[in-house]
């Protein structure tokens, strides 16, 4: 979901309240979209052959680590790229 400002000037119709609201909703949509991707990936890594009656503690730890390490990996790689870019020019 994105509101493209290029062909319609939203500020003509939307006051700053609404623009703030839309920005928050966009962030929410982005967060939910990332959460869906992570759920997909971490489900495959952490959930076994058959679903249990509840998520056990071990599975929850696995899911937590899966999400946190993904974010760490993503930050690490961006920083590494930045370092490479700055050292090469």
């Amino acid at each position, binding site marked *: *979901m994105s509101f493209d400002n290029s062909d319609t000037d939203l500020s*003509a*119709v*939307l*006051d700053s*309240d*609404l623009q703030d*609201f*839309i920005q928050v*909703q966009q962030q*929410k*949509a982005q*967060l*939910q*979209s*990332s*959460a*869906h991707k*992570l*759920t*997909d990936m*971490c*489900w495959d890594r*952490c*959930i076994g*052959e*058959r*679903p*249990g*009656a*509840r*998520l056990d503690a071990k599975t*929850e730890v696995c*899911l*937590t680590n899966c*999400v*946190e390490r993904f*974010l760490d990996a993503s*930050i690490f790689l961006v920083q590494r790229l930045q370092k490479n870019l700055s050292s090469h020019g």
Partner: protein
Amino acid sequence: MTDKLSGAQKDELMQQVQQQLAVANFQELVTKATHKCYKMCIAKPGSSLSTSDQNCLAMCMDRYTDTYNHVIRVYTTKLQNGLQR
């Protein structure tokens, strides 16, 4: 259309945006869970859904929802802590 929206129109617009976002999120969850749970529970599709297939699907859907809720909680917390650093 250059007029600003009235208060009531604004409220309606905000409500609609929130509602559509919730619907889209729910649809995504159902689509993802259906794929995962079909793969997990229906190894060999027979001529009908057996009771044990249905039990497995129900359990799987509930756990997928738990997983999503857990993931979004961890993700949000980690992002907030990361920003504070």
